[in-house]
């Protein structure tokens, strides 16, 4: 049964491509995408993926290999946490900071949302993000806030594709990604004629900058940065090329000149 529908589908595709030659590139890209999806799905045992078994296995491995081999660390962590970093990372399954930056328990207070965005300070609308930043800066007293963007980000792609003219096709996604609309405007102004993928790549980095600037709208962040107790850094994980970029927002007072 499965085979028939597969062969029918392939036949239909062949027929379409014979008739419409220009669709070959589009088809090639889509087939590549499907192959990639199937490849990653099968590597996590898609035949009978049982999430309960998966997390049980994961948890038991964690307990045996990490928890029980380091009782001193986990004993201390049970009493409290004092991470040096606060990290904003994307919810994307491929960019967990624990893997990419090798963070161990206790290292980093991590907030993950679509396209690792930091909205401007708003007590009502964005209380969740505000709470996380307030907790990290005032209670945990982190030394660095790092906002990490990444390649092939679905959220940024959405930002670049959605018209964002008020007629929303989604309940919440468009309202969220428009936080980084300044990044989109900047990229379109600077590189209108570039390929869409290039524009997305630039936007992914610019959106990190918008988030860094938005961090400064939180009074306790501004205070920490001015005092020098808090630093704001931006990062970009390019998993297509296996590279990582890092930069910082520098902030200071110039020497005073008598004029």
């Amino acid at each position, binding site marked *: 049964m499965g085979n028939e529908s597969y062969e029918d589908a392939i036949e239909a595709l062949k027929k379409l491509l014979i008739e419409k030659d220009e669709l070959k590139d589009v088809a090639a890209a889509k087939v590549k995408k499907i192959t990639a999806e199937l490849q990653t799905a099968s590597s996590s045992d898609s035949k009978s993926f049982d*999430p309960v078994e998966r997390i049980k296995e994961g948890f038991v491995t964690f307990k045996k290999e990490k928890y029980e081999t380091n009782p001193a660390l986990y004993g201390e962590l049970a009493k409290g946490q004092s991470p040096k970093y606060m990290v904003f990372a994307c*919810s994307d399954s491929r960019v967990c900071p624990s893997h990419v930056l090798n963070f161990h*328990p206790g290292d980093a207070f991590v907030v993950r949302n*679509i396209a690792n965005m930091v909205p401007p300070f708003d007590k009502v609308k964005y209380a969740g*993000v505000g709470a996380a930043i307030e907790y990290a800066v005032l209670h945990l007293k982190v030394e660095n806030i790092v906002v990490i963007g990444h390649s092939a980000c679905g959220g940024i792609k959405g930002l670049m594709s959605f018209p964002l003219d008020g007629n929303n096709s989604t309940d919440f996604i468009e309202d969220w990604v428009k936080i980084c609309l300044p990044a989109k405007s*900047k990229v379109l*102004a600077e590189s209108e004629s570039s390929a869409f993928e290039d524009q997305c790549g630039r936007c992914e980095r610019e959106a990190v900058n918008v988030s860094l600037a938005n961090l*400064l709208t939180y009074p306790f962040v501004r205070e920490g940065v001015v005092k020098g107790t808090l630093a704001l850094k931006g990062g970009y994980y390019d998993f297509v090329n296996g590279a990582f970029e890092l930069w910082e927002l520098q902030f200071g007072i110039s020497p005073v000149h008598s004029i």
Partner: protein
Amino acid sequence: MAFTLGGRVRRLVSATSIHQNGCLHKLQQIGSDRFQLGEAKAIRLLPRRTNMVQELGIREEFMDPNRETETSYDFLDEMRHRFLKFKRQKYLPEIEKFQALAIAQSPKVMVIGCADSRVCPSYVLGFQPGEAFTIRNVANLVTPVQNGPTETNSALEFAVTTLQVENIIVMGHSNCGGIAALMSHQNHQGQHSSLVERWVMNGKAAKLRTQLASSHLSFDEQCRNCEKESIKDSVMNLITYSWIRDRVKRGEVKIHGCYYNLSDCSLEKWRLSSDKTNYGFYISDREIWS
């Protein structure tokens, strides 16, 4: 390589003319006439009306170049070390898998976890790159649809409708600072509520149930109970979203709750099942692993 963002921050700020937030408008006004591209590290972004001397303290201490550079390079070195470890131990040995992932992700699981540094869901539950779409916020709270947009529900919508994940796990944990703040918060709604208190008050129902049932227990024990009650509330709030509820009823999405106790390294998990007879939901398949 750390370089100044002076010029770039300035352009960035002036491009935000469509920003609604009053604060950012002020930054914008100051930005355009205040700094030039030539002034290396010096970017002033504070509103004029602040008393600069009071806020900054001693200028020399602040401008100590050695201290700043040292911290920058330490940070750079540490991040480089961390990233290269990942690249050597994970990325390069499994390069084909990562190249396939670079084209598309198709995670089967979405996890909503706490931002707490000790409870990364990938670390504790062993998810590898590509397996779990992860949302992390303070106290792993999911608010109901009627409360309006939050950062969490846009991610929920993306994972369920676009990525079409098949499983949603809400993972709470013991010794949660957010829940402790909820339990110790006095119930008067003041203007002085901090952002943390405003956010964790979304778990008010869990707090009330906990206090009713276990007011005789110590504060710590009550917090443990509240952490578990809050997971249940977050799970039930997931159902308020029609695109989740419909898929759960059709059996396309399964919802699980789990509670990680970091004092004794145990994991309690259960499933939310839908009752076909009365269209309700109930908890099933409860297990504790330790």
